[in-house]
């Protein structure tokens, strides 16, 4: 239960960090970025991960911010989850992201865990990637060739794998404005409060003249990465925002899932069942939420 030995660097600037990652990558060294450490540290302790070198971003105070950029909410990658959960700006501008953040772990974890870390870690059971898919989150990465923005749809590749290059650092996440009146919900099932979810579903949609528009449904904890449930979305699009339609969409959400993953805590069939139940709950809760 003790991490294997590693070398350690704590660069003082983003440029220094990027240059260091480029040098280490060039030398073929196995370096890993340490942000808040709340996912990486257990992996080190269990020796599931044994990197040669940790590059700690703790000195990059410039990546700790929450701000409104002309209607777009921007959060620095090293901002703590608790800071995001407590932020009045986040609550007002991105209520779904705020609610998802409160579902992550416990306060001790959220105090140290970073906003950027969970996106870059891309655990399939994490709330964040699914929320990013429905919210059109943009990921800003700094690398040797400057910075680039990656759309959520292109960011999550597979199990704990993102579009980030080994020489890149996630520096910020940006959320497209969340229209007033848009309905949202996130529902998950975990064995204990604060555990990673066995399965979860998040939804957003607008209601125009009683009809569902811009329906987005994403699931987490069921496959190698979070995924949009497009068949259920299509079924609900343009239909009345009513229980019978939500029921049909949630059945489709479960039925259309391609081979949900299985583990000792939840079989594939059980996860499929959960996605149906959670989709129905989320749609109903979103429709009922005062707005």
């Amino acid at each position, binding site marked *: *239960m*003790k*991490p*294997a*030995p*590693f*070398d*350690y660097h*704590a660069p003082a600037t983003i440029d220094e960090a990027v240059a260091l990652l480029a040098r280490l990558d060039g030398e073929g060294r196995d370096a890993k970025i*340490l942000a808040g*450490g*709340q996912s990486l*540290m*257990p992996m*080190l*302790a*269990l020796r599931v991960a044994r990197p040669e070198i*940790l590059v*700690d971003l*703790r000195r990059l105070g410039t990546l700790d911010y929450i701000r409104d950029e002309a209607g777009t909410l921007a959060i620095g990658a090293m901002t703590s989850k*608790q800071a995001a959960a407590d932020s009045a700006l986040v609550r007002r501008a991105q209520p779904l992201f705020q609610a998802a953040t409160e579902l992550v*772990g*416990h*306060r*001790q*974890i959220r*105090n*140290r865990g970073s906003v950027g870390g969970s996106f870059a870690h891309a655990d399939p059971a994490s709330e964040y990637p699914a929320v990013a898919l429905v919210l059109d989150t943009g990921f800003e990465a700094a690398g040797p060739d400057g910075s680039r923005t990656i759309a959520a749809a292109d960011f999550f590749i597979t199990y704990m794998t993102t579009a980030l290059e080994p020489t890149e650092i996630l520096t910020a996440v940006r959320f497209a404005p969340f229209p007033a009146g848009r309905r949202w919900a996130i529902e998950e099932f975990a064995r*204990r*409060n*604060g555990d990673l979810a066995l399965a979860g579903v998040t939804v957003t949609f607008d209601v125009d003249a009683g009809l569902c528009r811009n329906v987005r449904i994403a699931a987490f904890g069921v496959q190698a990465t979070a995924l949009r449930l497009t068949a259920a979305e299509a079924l609900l699009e343009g239909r009345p925002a009513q229980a019978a339609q939500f029921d049909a969409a949630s059945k489709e959400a479960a039925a259309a899932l391609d081979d949900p993953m299985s583990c000792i805590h939840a079989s594939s069939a059980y996860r499929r069942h959960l996605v149906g139940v959670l989709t129905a709950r989320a749609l109903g809760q979103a429709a009922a939420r005062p707005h």
Partner: protein
Amino acid sequence: MPNKQRVEVRVNGTRYVREVEPRLTLADFLRHELNLGGTHVGCEHGICGACTVLVDERSARACLTLAVQADGCGITTVEGLRDPSSGALHPIQQAFVDGHGLQCGFCTPGFMMTTLELLRCTPDPSEEQIKEALGGNLCRCTGYQSILDSVKLAAQRMKPSTPA
């Protein structure tokens, strides 16, 4: 041999400087480098909460924090709860004694440090808020009810007295 790192921290008001291996956790640093054994180490991978301490006034799992990450920080451990001049127990400690909030005591330092942050942020917590706050700490003896009672008792005793 990995490069040793200099760590300077202030723990319960006392400054310490050590050279440590980067892989040393804050929990092991407190226990083995500083001989502060009050911070207990249970699961060592962030599940049980026994090692909870405050880092710059915010609760953290000391097993999920490297000592090097705490460089420059102020740490509060369970040893910092007692009144340094009188030696009197902190109201949270006294409430855990009076409320039978512990049996074997292994998890207790973590529960008390979690409670310290809770009551600083939420001086008059509801039962739901207490349960949510304590959700990251495991106890295998008490069945939790007496811990809830102890936290309520501490909150009651620590509440600033309101004018009649």
